[in-house]
């Protein structure tokens, strides 16, 4: 084991960047699963779809992050359609249907994966941008710009979603539907339309997260499987539905993983991440920021 305070500082610094990346890829799930209780296991697959769409759009000369932003409205519509289908076929038929909904989302993930393979093949895809492949030198430290982009995207997404959910009428309605759906119905609001809107937002956010994913590293169609465990871990650790909690949980996971990777050994990293989740759930079953 190699130890020095410089290395520890570097591990923490990089853990913060990695944590923000984890938060950014999980924040859409925090809305769909955390707030809406939809077992959205296709979230990482939709993100990969976002990565491939970014690959196409950035091929026309647009910056990858801008491509992700341009794609958000289309993904919003896609999210609305997916939720509508899920609602009509599963959710409206009662609680048992939600379990069958899990199979629906697995199926959706599989269809996206196979569709991407048919359209693009199984080779990895990357995008080009000035901030990919270079790093910021701060004394002896070198910080990859692509991770700084992930850091920025995570902060902006968290701040935007937190403000939206707390300051706007629709945002507050989304939080209300998560807490007490019948009460919202009594207030004259249509919970299904609110959930549909929220799911659209979660899917739209996935487009930007997908753009960030292909900036951080190459993607291939089956890559969603790597992120299923990690994204759910972040959302559950945060406490279902908390946006700032998602950022905090991502940071905790990222810093823990980075320190373990650098100091103890890479094989321990997943064990530490999921061990941390077990400990937190043992002490606070509602998660770190859940109520």
């Amino acid at each position: 084991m190699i130890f020095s305070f410089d290395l520890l500082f570097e591990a923490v610094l990089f853990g913060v960047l990695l944590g923000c990346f984890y938060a950014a890829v999980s924040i859409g799930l925090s809305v769909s699963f955390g707030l809406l209780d939809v077992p959205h296991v296709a979230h990482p697959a939709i993100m990969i779809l976002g990565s491939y769409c970014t690959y196409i759009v950035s091929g026309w000369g647009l910056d990858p992050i801008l491509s992700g932003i341009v794609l958000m409205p289309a993904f919003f519509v896609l999210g609305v359609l997916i939720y509508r289908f899920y609602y009509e076929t599963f959710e409206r038929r009662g609680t048992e249907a939600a379990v069958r909904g899990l199979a629906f989302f697995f199926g959706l993930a599989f269809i996206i994966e196979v569709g991407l393979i048919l359209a693009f093949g199984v080779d990895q895809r990357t995008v080009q941008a000035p901030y990919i492949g270079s790093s910021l030198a701060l004394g002896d430290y070198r910080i990859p710009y692509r991770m700084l982009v992930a850091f920025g995207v995570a902060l902006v997404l968290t701040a935007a979603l937190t403000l939206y959910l707390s300051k706007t009428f629709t945002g507050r309605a989304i939080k209300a539907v998560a807490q007490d759906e019948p009460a919202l119905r009594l207030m004259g609001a249509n919970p299904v339309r609110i959930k549909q809107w929220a799911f659209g937002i979660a899917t739209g956010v996935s487009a930007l997260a997908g753009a960030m994913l292909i900036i951080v590293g190459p993607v291939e169609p089956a890559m969603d499987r790597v992120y299923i465990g990690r994204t759910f871990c972040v959302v559950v650790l945060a406490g279902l539905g908390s946006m700032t909690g998602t950022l905090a949980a991502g940071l905790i996971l990222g810093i823990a993983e980075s320190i373990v990777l650098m100091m103890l050994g890479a094989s321990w990293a997943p064990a530490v991440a999921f061990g941390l989740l077990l400990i937190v759930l043992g002490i606070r079953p509602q998660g770190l920021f859940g109520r």
Partner: protein
Amino acid sequence: MRGSRRKVLKAGAALAAASALPGKAFAQAGPVKIGMSMPQTGSLGAGGQAALVALRLWVDDVNQRGGLLNRKVELIAYDDQTNPANVPGIYTKLLDVDKVDLLIAPYGTVPTAPIMPMVKQRNLLLMGNFSFQVNAKVQHDMWFNNSPWNDASSWSDGFVKAGQEAGAKSIAFLAADQEFAQNLANGARELSKKANIKAVYDQNYPPTTTDFSSLIRGIRAARPDMVFVMSYPNDSVAIIRAVNEIGVGSSVQVFGGGMVGLQFTPIMTSLGSLLNGVLNYNSYVPGMKYPGIEDFLSRYAKRAADAKVDPLGFYLPPFNYAIGQMLEQAVNATKSLEHRRLAEYLRKNEMKTVVGPIRYDKMGEWANPRVVQAQFRGVADKDTEQFRQAGKQVVIYPEEYKTGNVITPFEKARSAK
């Protein structure tokens, strides 16, 4: 009415005559079925799909020549998704439901390992497909690997020697936590120990690792003279990128060794100039001459373009075509599909293939391994065609294929032309 019936009869006769023209007449006994699982998705999918193009090319070629034992050859290949858990089920189906006559292993060590006990128990001939030491413990006497390596030294020797020539006294190991990389790492550790090279960093990483910056920082802090990396394709890309961004340190003389994926054209093209200086293993690089290889590669390239797979196909495809050639020679010589007889023939005779002559040792690995260690030099960005040139991968090892000396240290090699 009569006129139209005559026209129909004429058209039918013409169609029957036309369909009989290009093909060969096969015996009534049904096709010779060759079965395999192949990673067509997942981390080894890109390699697996390219390999399948080559195997299908051989199937078409052999059918043009009249098939095997005058029977048409049919290839049955299922996607194992690079998931070893899927592989035993696929082979059980191939044997018990599809009733295949011959078996080829999936590409890679990890997907192959789970079926080794089964083929040994059932006494089946298995043509290996770029596995590494997968038969070392099972010791099945009907296993024949197509890969140009045998033991750990055949793979790592060239890399360790290149480091020694540069005066390396210490080494860092970074290995994926799975069968192939661990087999290779164990051998490399022993080799470096024998060469009095001290291991100053030794890490295994789980296959789910998404970013390698922390590990590269750890290696840099250990200040090794050599860095031996044993990784799978997605990891290899992430590692090369992290090295480019963070730097691996000025002490490092040679970097690479066992990185799978840096032989795949799409990956080489996407990494471009980031590859410069990396010294890594390969199975074939332009400039190596074997009878038939150039004809094979040009025919492969046409099919690869349609299949949207590796357009150059230097790494796996010729060796997969060679599997077909070896089966063809063994079946034609023994006039049999009996596994024991075919295995005996393969063990005793030299096979003539597009990757040169192959003779097997008692473990079913190449008696004369031909793994090359080649250093990337002067690679430009976004240019696939450049890799057809001989100088982009300078062969450092073995002596008989050597086209240049290793440039050290690694930082200097990165800017060398």
